[in-house]
Each structure stands twice: as structure tokens, then as C-alpha cells.
């Protein structure tokens, strides 16, 4: 090998070493207990898939063949079990949140179409305080690691989007009274 080849090889090796060192330094600086820096895009959160009823998604499975009726009405044939309750039913109906042209998407007020996995942006249009708390992990349940990656739940995992108040559940049994503890 001539001296020039040797020279280039040295340069490449040196660059590689420095890259490795810089990388190791970066990794070493973060203590394992501190929360890792936010992912590249702020708005993406680790969420499980949306809680669709069995066999209902994709919506276009049925809706593709149907003509959209944009008039506000009470649904008589299909989706009769979906009723807006305590959720601005006077002001809104289906197509305010569901996109009329692409049924597999949700629709923001701005007209932007979003996936169901980003439904927090839709809910956050009105519930901005909850959205803000949810983003920092204070509203709603989070699982994962206290010192690392956290998994969020979507709004619909806890709240039925059409009737969002949390439904009462049966409590676990009370503790025994001391006189019954043998």
C-alpha cells in the first residue's frame, strides 16, 4: 500500500474513533434515573391501539360504497347505540369529529385529517387544560418506567368519546373489621 492510501486509512480510522467517543460521551452523560429527552417530534406519544369495538374498523369497509349525507340527523338504521350524552350533543353531531370524505380519519376544526391514534389532538381542541396535563403525564394513567419510556393511554381508553364521564365500577371488598380478624 502506498503512503497516500495509508494516509486516507488513518484519517478514516481517526474519524471513526472520534465519532465513537462522542457517542459514548453522550450516552454516559445521562444518568439512568433522569427522564430521557423528548423524542424528535414532540407530538408523538407511545400509545396502544385505539379501543375499537370488534370488527368496526376500518370504517371505510362499509362507508366506501355509501354516499355521504351531510345533513344533521338522528341515525335510525346503523350506529343506533352511539348517542352523544353530556358531551355537547346540542351543538355537535357525527361529522364534526369524523371526517365526511375519509371515514378512517378524524377531523379537526381546522379541517386537518388525523388518525384515530392521534385522537388526543381532537379532544384537546376543547379540553386544552386536560391535554396539557396529559402531555406531561399528570392527567390519566401512564405505564412504563418512572425513569424512562412511558406509555400513554388514549382518551378513549378511559372515556367513551360519545359519553365521556367515567362509569361507576364495583369496588373491591372492604377490609375486615378488627373483631373478625382471628
Amino acid at each position, binding site marked *: 500500500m502506498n503512503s497516500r492510501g495509508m494516509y486516507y486509512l488513518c484519517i478514516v480510522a481517526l474519524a471513526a474513533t472520534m465519532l465513537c467517543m462522542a457517542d459514548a460521551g453522550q450516552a454516559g452523560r445521562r444518568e439512568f434515573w433522569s427522564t430521557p429527552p423528548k423524542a424528535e417530534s414532540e407530538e408523538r406519544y407511545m400509545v396502544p391501539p385505539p379501543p375499537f369495538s370488534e370488527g368496526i374498523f376500518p370504517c371505510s369497509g362499509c362507508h366506501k360504497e355509501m354516499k355521504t349525507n351531510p345533513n344533521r340527523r338522528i341515525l335510525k338504521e346503523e350506529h343506533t347505540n352511539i348517542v352523544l350524552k353530556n358531551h355537547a350533543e346540542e351543538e355537535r353531531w357525527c361529522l364534526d369529529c369524523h371526517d365526511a370524505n375519509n371515514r378512517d380519519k378524524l377531523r379537526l376544526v381546522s379541517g386537518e385529517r388525523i388518525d384515530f391514534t392521534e385522537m388526543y389532538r381532537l379532544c384537546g381542541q376543547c379540553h386544552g387544560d386536560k391535554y396539557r396535563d396529559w402531555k406531561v403525564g399528570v*392527567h390519566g394513567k401512564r405505564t412504563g418506567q418512572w425513569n424512562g419510556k412511558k406509555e400513554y393511554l388514549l382518551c378513549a381508553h378511559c372515556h367513551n368519546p360519545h359519553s365521556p364521564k367515567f362509569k361507576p365500577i364495583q369496588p373491591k371488598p*372492604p377490609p375486615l373489621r378488627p373483631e373478625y380478624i382471628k
Partner: protein
Amino acid sequence: MSDKETRDKKIFRLTRRKALKGLAAGLGALAFPGKDASASVWEAFFQKNFRELGKPERDKILARLEKEYSAQFGKAVKVKATPPVEGVLFGYGLDLSRCIGCRRCVYGCVDENNQSREPQIHWIRVLRLEKEKGVDLEHAEHYYNPAKVPEEGYFYMPVQCQQCENPPCTKVCPVQATWKENDGIVVVDYNWCIGCRYCMAACPYGARHFNWKKPGLPAAEMNPDTHYLGNRPRPVGVVEKCTFCIQRTREPEGRYPACVEVCPVGARKFGNFLDPASEIRYAIENKRVFILKEELNTQPKFYYFYFT
């Protein structure tokens, strides 16, 4: 010296003094474990306070306990002694406006931490309070049992160990079997505890519990992932308490405590106070919080919130 005197010296004469000495020695010997003493019983008997142990001794004790528990419960039991992590001070938050009083946390804790099922021991107690009266502990009810929760006009406040920065319980322990670790968790060395229950009297939150009987823990329900200062099986006659699931939270995997994971409404928050990006830090910096019985200056690291 005559023959008689020499003979008298060699004859054993029982005197009152000798009898008492013998009786005392005999009773003393009875107090030692003798009946079914295996080597491990003797080792446990002469074991030092956990904080005085060197690493080789500690490892030996952990190995001995693992062997004992594995035999007792018929599965491979792990006993860890992971020390506190530098730069971590654990803190807890509970959102009173979310809690619905369903007691999932109570039983999640029992399953994780190997509490006695019979007689029953719960580390978490959920109080039902009247909305009109606010946090008025005199009118708290913890035996509530309706068909569905939450009930109209009530709110719920779970109470467990508050992991005080200034814990009254550790100060009264006559043998220093309980202390506050550097990450803020108050722990008990069950092998050093003498069962005097002074700490229970000193705790203003009712967070400590006593094993009046040998804990009834079915082998099938036993959680084999244990910590020496946390959820390892307890003997009879010692005090136990919440440790923020020390066997989970101190590991590098950083799991949340069992009560946080099981809460269906996400009312429970947990994290590192010293990490500015943690959710618990955000909560106490930005939300209205209070601590229970603030006037006692126990300085709990357990914050109650109203997030609304």
C-alpha cells in the same frame, strides 16, 4: 486439713445461691433456639443489623433466605438488597379529584408485597370522606361497601405510608430496626425488629402493621421477586409497611409501584423529585397540593392533589 474437710469440699451441696444460678442458666438456655434448630436458625439468631453487614455477610444472608423461602414456597425465590440510587428521591402524588375509591390499589399491593392473607393485612386504607366536610378525618369511613363507586356526595382518600422526611416512627425504635434510606424510603429490617410496636404508636397515619400471627401466605400467590427490606416473607411478631415497592422501583428497569400500575383512573403518580422532567415534579410545581397532617412536621413525600 483433715480428711473430713477435704471430703466436704468435694461433695456437691446444693445451696440457695447455687440453685438460683442453675435455674437462671437453665431458663436462659431454653430461650435459645434448640428444638428444631438447623444451622440456618443459628445463623439468623446471630445475624447483625442490616446496616452493619459487610458485603460478604450480606450475600451469605441473602443466599440463606433464598434457600429458606424457596423450600418453604416451592419455587425459586429471589431476595435482592439493591441499594438506593444516587440522585434519586422518590415522591408520590395522589389525585383526589380522580380517585373513585375502587380499592384496586389495596389488593394490587397485597399481591405484589406478600402481605398476610389470613390474618388480613392491608398496607393501603381507602377513606371515604364527605364532600361537604372536606378532608375531615374524624368523619372518615373505610368500611364503605356500596354496589358501585364513586358515590354521590363523597370523595375518597387512600392512605398508606407517607415516607416522611422527618419520620417519627424511626426515632422511637429502641433497636434501630427501622430507618430512612437515602432515596427517602423508610424500611424495616424484619430480622432485627423485636416487635415492640412503638413505631406503630408513633406513626400518625396508621401506616404500620403488625404480624400478630405467622402470616398466612398461600404458596401459589407468593410473589418470588423480593427485596430484603421490602416484600420478602415476614416472620411472626414484626412490623411491616409500604416501601414504594422497593423491589421494583430501585431496579434499573424503573418499574412503577404496583398501586400506580393497577389504578384504573390514573390517580396515582410516582417519580423522582430530583429529576426536573418527572411528572411528580411538574405536579408539585404547577398544581395545588397538600400533605396530610402538615402540622405534625413529618414532611411526607406523599402529596395529595386536586388536579381537576
